[in-house]
């Protein structure tokens, strides 16, 4: 494992420091666009819930809170393992780096598995709008809107989770070939920032969809 991997600087940069700060700013600006991309769903949720407060409360009680909470814990843990992985990269510990990245991928897959079972259970309870939505209680349209937003938000989040797993997998593969060193670990940091963003999106999705009011 050559520690001082040759730091290749693209032609448009003057030095590695400029290249790193460009990458950092670039990923953060991209994360801001992601915040706004999901933000629209939160805005639509807020306005539609303001119009149908009771229906959203009763709909939220139909979501599976145990699986939702477990998933939140899984994702928070994956953020920890990702952070430890990035730290390992900075310290040049290649083996722990690959180890932590694989743990993160595993946790991501666990998250998706739990999500899939949740979707399966919801399908069983006829809660999927557009397919087999059936609901007898009050204000059926608004409850259907809640589940429309539920499947849209969690679906998009899962898609970003799949992309995240793909990115971390490629980084782990390159790390196992010794591509990163304390001098050059930008891709690891960038993929870590993306992973944490996907976790932050879930941090906001969880209370809004699962915990509207359980009393």
């Amino acid at each position, binding site marked *: 494992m050559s520690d001082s991997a040759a730091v290749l600087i693209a032609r448009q940069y003057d030095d590695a420091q400029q290249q790193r700060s460009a990458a950092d700013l670039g990923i953060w600006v991209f994360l801001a666009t992601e915040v706004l991309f999901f933000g629209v769903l939160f805005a639509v949720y807020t306005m539609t819930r303001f119009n149908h407060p009771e229906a959203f409360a009763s709909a939220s009680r139909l979501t599976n809170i145990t699986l939702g909470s477990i998933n939140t814990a899984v994702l928070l843990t994956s953020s920890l393992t990702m952070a430890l992985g990035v730290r390992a990269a900075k310290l040049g510990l290649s083996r722990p780096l690959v180890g932590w990245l694989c743990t993160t991928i595993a946790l991501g897959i666990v998250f998706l598995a739990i999500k899939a079972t949740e979707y399966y259970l919801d399908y069983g309870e006829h809660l999927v709008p557009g397919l087999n939505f059936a609901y007898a*209680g*009050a204000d059926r349209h608004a409850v259907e809107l809640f589940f429309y937003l539920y499947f849209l938000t969690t679906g998009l989040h899962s898609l970003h989770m799949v992309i995240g797993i793909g990115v971390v997998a490629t980084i782990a593969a390159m790390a196992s070939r010794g591509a990163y060193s304390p001098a050059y670990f930008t891709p690891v940091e960038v993929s870590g920032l993306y992973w944490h963003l996907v976790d932050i999106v879930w941090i906001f999705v969880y209370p809004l969809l699962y915990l509207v009011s359980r009393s």
Partner: protein
Amino acid sequence: MWSFPLFPEKASALASSVDIVFFVWLALAGLVASTVAFLIVFFAVKYRSGSSANRETADEQAQNRINRRIEIAWMTIPLVLFMAMFAWSAEIYYDYATPPANAMVVYVVGKQWMWKLEHAGGRREIDELHVPAGRPVKLVMTSQDVIHDFFMPVFRIKQDVLPGRYTTLWFEATKPGDYQLFCSQYCGTDHSRMVGRVVVMEPAAFERWLASGNSTGSMAAQGAAHFREYGCSGCHGASASVHAPKLEGLFGRPVQLADGSTVIADDRYIHDSVLLPRKEITAGYAPIMPSFQGQITEDALLEIIEYVKSLKTAQPGEVR
């Protein structure tokens, strides 16, 4: 084609106040635009390349201080001016947005590419609105399909007409005559054919017109017919045995809902209760009412609402 107007007619008090604001803005805009244009031409000529105009600035520091003061001046002056103009036109806007209580009500239903209007007395009109001069008229409007917009340039007012909602628009015509009515929110293929006429008549002539129409009874009467025809009376009728909310004296009263909140029983409440019965369930009643969405047309529903308003016989002060 050769005799063409440059300024629209006006036939209401609000129209004249809007025109005054327009002329003041026109004057201000003209003043600023001509000053800028004059300065550009003047500087362009005086300071053209090679001209012998004096270009020296005596003292850089003094010039910078003056420049900064100029900069602040043409920041604050427009701000003050804009806020004044904002307040003036907002005041007219609030007058436009609040119909007087004694206004005569006409119900309007916009449908892809025609306007259906109905007076309280039951007189129906297509793409035409007859109103008396000198009396405020309030239009209660809804749409059966997409968003339309009821636009009468002569009164300088318009208001979007939304499906699933009642929007209101009011005016008080001063000058009898025949004026244009447009739909000004894009609504599909024949958007440009969804036009009509607003006929302002002397009050006496209007009464004769209203009476002469072959109206099939007042809206309330037709509403009563629909009330029986669609089977509402089966549950909500005076003699009904089914446990359903009584409608006598309901209109305008607060209604206690199953989820604890209270709502005023206005046009919207009755409209939604008929089409989306499970949206707001009255406290103490089971959600058994079927939805009439797609069966009752918007204008039949307006007549039913008028009928419910006419049921005033209940004891006052009783909370439904």
